[in-house]
C-alpha cells in the first residue's frame, strides 16, 4: 500500500551572500504522513520551508505537487496557498484583536460583502469538527497560544490545504497543549493531509512522526522511516559525528553540599513582583548551579526577573553576601554582579540592527559609564576575544546580530554577560530553539563557570538538560514555589511528582 506522493522537491539549491544555504536537497512527502524535518540551526530547514512557501526564490531545483509531473512555480505565499501549501509558524501570525472566525476567513472573502452570520456558523462548524475549544466570535487574543495555533491550522484546513507545514509549533506550549495539538495533527493525518513538522524536541518527533528527513549544513543527510532510526542515531546524523556527548556531560555537576555548607552569594526572602508570582524565598551559593523548574507559565521566568529587577518588585528583601541590597531596575542588579540572559531572545535579548561587537560590549559599556566609551580598538579586542572563546559563527564583528542564526545570537548574548564578569549568572531558557551542538556547548560552559566559582541559575523546559547541570532545583506550580529538590531527589520522576503535587 504505497501512498500517493503529494509533494516532491528535487535538487533544491539556494544561496545567500556568503552562504550556500541549500545544496541539491531532495524532499518527498506522502499523503497522510507526518514528516519531521530535522537539523541543527543553519542546517537549512527554514530555508527549505521558505523556498517551498515562496518566501525565498530558489536558485535551482524543481517542485512537484500532487503527483503531477508538471513543475509548479511558487513565487509568493499566495502561490503556495493556491497549490495547497499552508504554513503555521512558531510565532502566531494571526491578528489577536480580531475574532476567531475573522482570523480564519480574513483575506479570503470573495467580493465586497461578507455574510457575517454564515462566516461565524461555518467557523463554528469547522472548529467543532476539529475539536478545537474556541468560539467563532471569541476574540483571538483571549485564547491560549495553543488554541491560537490550532485556529491557524483550522484556517489552513479550510483553505483545502493538502500540505501543512508546522514550524516549531510546540515551543511555546505546555505538555497538555502539545497533546491537544497532536490530536489535531492525527485527525488531519487521517484526512490525508501531509504534514511537515519542524521541531527541536526529539520526544515529539518519536511520538507523532512517520518519517524523518535530516539536513546538515545545507545538504540532505537522508530520509528515514521512524522505526529505523533510534534517537542516538538521529542525534548523530544531525551532528554529523558518532559522539556520545549527551551522556558525557551527565553527572558532571557537583552534588549539593547541604544547606549549611558553602557561602551564600544571593538570598531572597518573600520576593514578589507585579508579574503575579507569590512571594518566594531563594538562595544560591558560590559555585553552585541551581534551577527553576515547572510547567510553562508556572512562574519560573517571573522569579528570576524579580531577582534581576526586570519586573517591578513589590515586596521582599534581597541580600548579597549577607548585605541587604535594593534592586529596583536591571542596572542595580548589574552593579551587584548579577547578569540575566532573558527567555525571549528576539524581544528582550538582541539589539537587532546593532553589530555583534556592539551587542557584546553593551552591558559592560553601560556598567562602565556614559562618559567612558570603549575605544574602537578595545571594543574590537573584546569582541574578537569572545567570538573566539564561544566559537560564535559570524562573518565579522561588524555583522548585524540579526543576521546570525539563533544559536549564535544566543552565544553573543552570553558573551555580553560573561564580559561583565558576573558573580551570579541567570540563564533563562538559554538553549531554547537552538541546535544540539550549541546546547551542549552551553551546558558545558555553565558547569565550567560554576567550577570557577560563578553561581548560575539555569532554567530550561527540558528537564533532562537541567538534571545534567543543576545540583539543586526549585520546583514551581501555578506561580508558587512548591518544593526544592537536591541530591538523590533529583530525578525525572521526583520532579514530575512535585510539579504534579504529592507523591504518586
Amino acid at each position, binding site marked *: 500500500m504505497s501512498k500517493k506522493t503529494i509533494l516532491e522537491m528535487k535538487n533544491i539549491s539556494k544561496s545567500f551572500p556568503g552562504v550556500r544555504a541549500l545544496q541539491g536537497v531532495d524532499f518527498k512527502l506522502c499523503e497522510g504522513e507526518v514528516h519531521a524535518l530535522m537539523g541543527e540551526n543553519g542546517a537549512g530547514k527554514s530555508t527549505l520551508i521558505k523556498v517551498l512557501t515562496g518566501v525565498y526564490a530558489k536558485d535551482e531545483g524543481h517542485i512537484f505537487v500532487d503527483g503531477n509531473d508538471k513543475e509548479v512555480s511558487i513565487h509568493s505565499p499566495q502561490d503556495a496557498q493556491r497549490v495547497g501549501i499552508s504554513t503555521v509558524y512558531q510565532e502566531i501570525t494571526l491578528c489577536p484583536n480580531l475574532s476567531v472566525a475573522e482570523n480564519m476567513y480574513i483575506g479570503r472573502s470573495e467580493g465586497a460583502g461578507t455574510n457575517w452570520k454564515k462566516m461565524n456558523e461555518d467557523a463554528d462548524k469547522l472548529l467543532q469538527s476539529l475539536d478545537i475549544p474556541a468560539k467563532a466570535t471569541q476574540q483571538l487574543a483571549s485564547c491560549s497560544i495553543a488554541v491560537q495555533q490550532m485556529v491557524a491550522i483550522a484556517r489552513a484546513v479550510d483553505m483545502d490545504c493538502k500540505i501543512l507545514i508546522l514550524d516549531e509549533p510546540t515551543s511555546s506550549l505546555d505538555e497538555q497543549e502539545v497533546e491537544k495539538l497532536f490530536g489535531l495533527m492525527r485527525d488531519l493525518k487521517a484526512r490525508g493531509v501531509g504534514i511537515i513538522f519542524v521541531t527541536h524536541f526529539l520526544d515529539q518527533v518519536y511520538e507523532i512522526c512517520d518519517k524523518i528527513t535530516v539536513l546538515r549544513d545545507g545538504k540532505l543527510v537522508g530520509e528515514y522511516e521512524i522505526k529505523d532510526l533510534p534517537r542516538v542515531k538521529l542525534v548523530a546524523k544531525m551532528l554529523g559525528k558518532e559522539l556520545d556527548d549527551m551522556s558525557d556531560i551527565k553527572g558532571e555537576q557537583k552534588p549539593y553540599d547541604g544547606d549549611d555548607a558553602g557561602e551564600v552569594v544571593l538570598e531572597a526572602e518573600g520576593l514578589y513582583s507585579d508579574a503575579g508570582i507569590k512571594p518566594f524565598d531563594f538562595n544560591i551559593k558560590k559555585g553552585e548551579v541551581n534551577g527553576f523548574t515547572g510547567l510553562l507559565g508556572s512562574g519560573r521566568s517571573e522569579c528570576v526577573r524579580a531577582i534581576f529587577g526586570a519586573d517591578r518588585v513589590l515586596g521582599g528583601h534581597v541580600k548579597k553576601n549577607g548585605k541587604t541590597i535594593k534592586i529596583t531596575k*536591571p542596572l542595580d542588579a548589574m552593579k551587584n554582579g548579577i547578569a540575566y540572559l532573558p527567555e525571549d531572545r528576539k524581544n*528582550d535579548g538582541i*539589539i537587532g540592527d546593532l553589530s555583534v561587537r556592539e551587542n557584546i560590549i*553593551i*552591558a559592560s559599556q553601560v*556598567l562602565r559609564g556614559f562618559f567612558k*566609551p570603549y575605544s574602537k580598538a578595545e571594543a574590537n579586542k573584546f569582541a574578537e576575544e569572545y567570538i573566539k572563546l564561544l566559537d560564535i559563527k559570524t562573518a565579522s564583528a561588524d555583522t548585524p546580530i540579526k543576521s546570525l542564526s539563533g544559536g549564535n545570537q544566543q552565544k553573543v548574548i552570553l558573551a*555580553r554577560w560573561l564580559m561583565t564578569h558576573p558573580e551570579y549568572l541567570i540563564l533563562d531558557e538559554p538553549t531554547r530553539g537552538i541546535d544540539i551542538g550549541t546546547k551542549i556547548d552551553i551546558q558545558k560552559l555553565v558547569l565550567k563557570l560554576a567550577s570557577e566559582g560563578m553561581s548560575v541559575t539555569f532554567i530550561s523546559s527540558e528537564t533532562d538538560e537541567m538534571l545534567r547541570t543543576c545540583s539543586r532545583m526549585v520546583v514551581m506550580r501555578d506561580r508558587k514555589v512548591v518544593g526544592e529538590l537536591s541530591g538523590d531527589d533529583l530525578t525525572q520522576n521526583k520532579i514530575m511528582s512535585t510539579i504534579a503535587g504529592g507523591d504518586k
Partner: protein
Amino acid sequence: MGNTKKKEAGFLSKIVRQQLFIPIAALLILAVFNLIADPSFFKITMGASSTGDPVLSGYLITILDYGSELAILAIGMTLVTAASGGQDISVGAAIAIAGSVILRVLCGTNSRPEELQTSVFVAFIAACLVAMLFGAFNGILVAHFKIQPMVATLILYTAGRSIAAWINNNELPIISEPTFGYYGGFIPGIPIPTPFFIAVICVVITALVLKFTNLGLYTQAVGINEKSSRLNGLNPVFIKFLSFVILGLCVAVVGLIKVSRFSTINYSVIAKDIEMDAILAVALGGNALSGGKFNMAASILGAYVIQFLTTTLYKFDVQSDALPAYKAVVVIILVVLSAPSVRAKLSQVGKKLHAKEVA
C-alpha cells in the same frame, strides 16, 4: 579582465550601500542639473553687506547660510528620530519661542530699546533654558506617557507661536544695535556668513560628544529595542527624554540665528515649516524615520542638500507657496527608494547587470 570588472562592481556596490551615498548622489544630481540649466548658479561674487563690509554672495553662499540652520536642527532631529522612532514637528514653533525669549531679554520692557538690556550671551542662555524646557515637555509626553512623537509635538506646534507672541506682549521688538546682526549675518571683516561658523561649532561639539560619550550607542540601542536596552541597564525613558532636550538646545541656537537675521521677529512666519526640512534632512541622510541606527554626518549633509534643492527651486522662480509640492516629490522618491521591496528589486537588477557584464 573579468576579475577586475568583478572588483569594480564589488567596489561600486560597496559605495552604493554606504549611507552617505544617498545625500551625495542627490547633491551631485542637483549640481549637474544646475550646471546644465544655468552655470551662473555657481557664481560667487564679492558684494557688500548692509554695513558696507565686503562679503561673498551667490547662490552657493545662500545655501551655506540657510543650510547651516537646517544642519543644526538636523543634529537634534536625528537623535529624536533614532531614539523615539518619531519626529518633532514643533521645531518651527519652538524656534519662534526661543527667538521671542532672546528679544524679550535683550529689550526688557521697552520694545524699541536704544541699547541692549543685557549681553546677547545672557539672552541666548535664557533662550536655551526655555527651549530645553519645551523640549523636556515634548520629551515627557513621548518618553513617559508614550504618546506618538508627532501627536505629542502637535501640541506645541499648535500653541508655540501664540506663546512666542505672548512672551513679548504681542509687540514686535526691534533691535537697533548692529552687533546683534552678526549672528545671522556677517562679522565685519569675515566674508563668510556667521551661521556657517555656528553650524561648524555645533557639528564639532556633536562629533566630540558622540566620540567621548555613549550617546550614540545608547540612543541607537533604545531606538532598536527598548525592552532589551532596559535589560542591559539602560533607561530608555531618560534617553528618549534627553534626545528631545538636545533638540531643544539646537532650536535655541537656530532661534538666535533667525532673530539676528532681521533684528526682529514675525511670530507667524519665523521658521515656518522648517521642521519639515529638518525631518527631510534626516530622511535624505538615509536614516530610518522609524528609529534605530543613525548616521549623523549623513543627516548634516542631507540638510545642506535640502537647502540646495530649495535654493535651486527659488532660482527657477518657483513660488514659495509651490515649494512644498516640489519637495513632496523628493520625499516620495526617497520613501519609495528606501522601501525594502524596492531595495530588493534594485539589488536584483544590479545583480543581473553584473552577471551580464561578467558574461
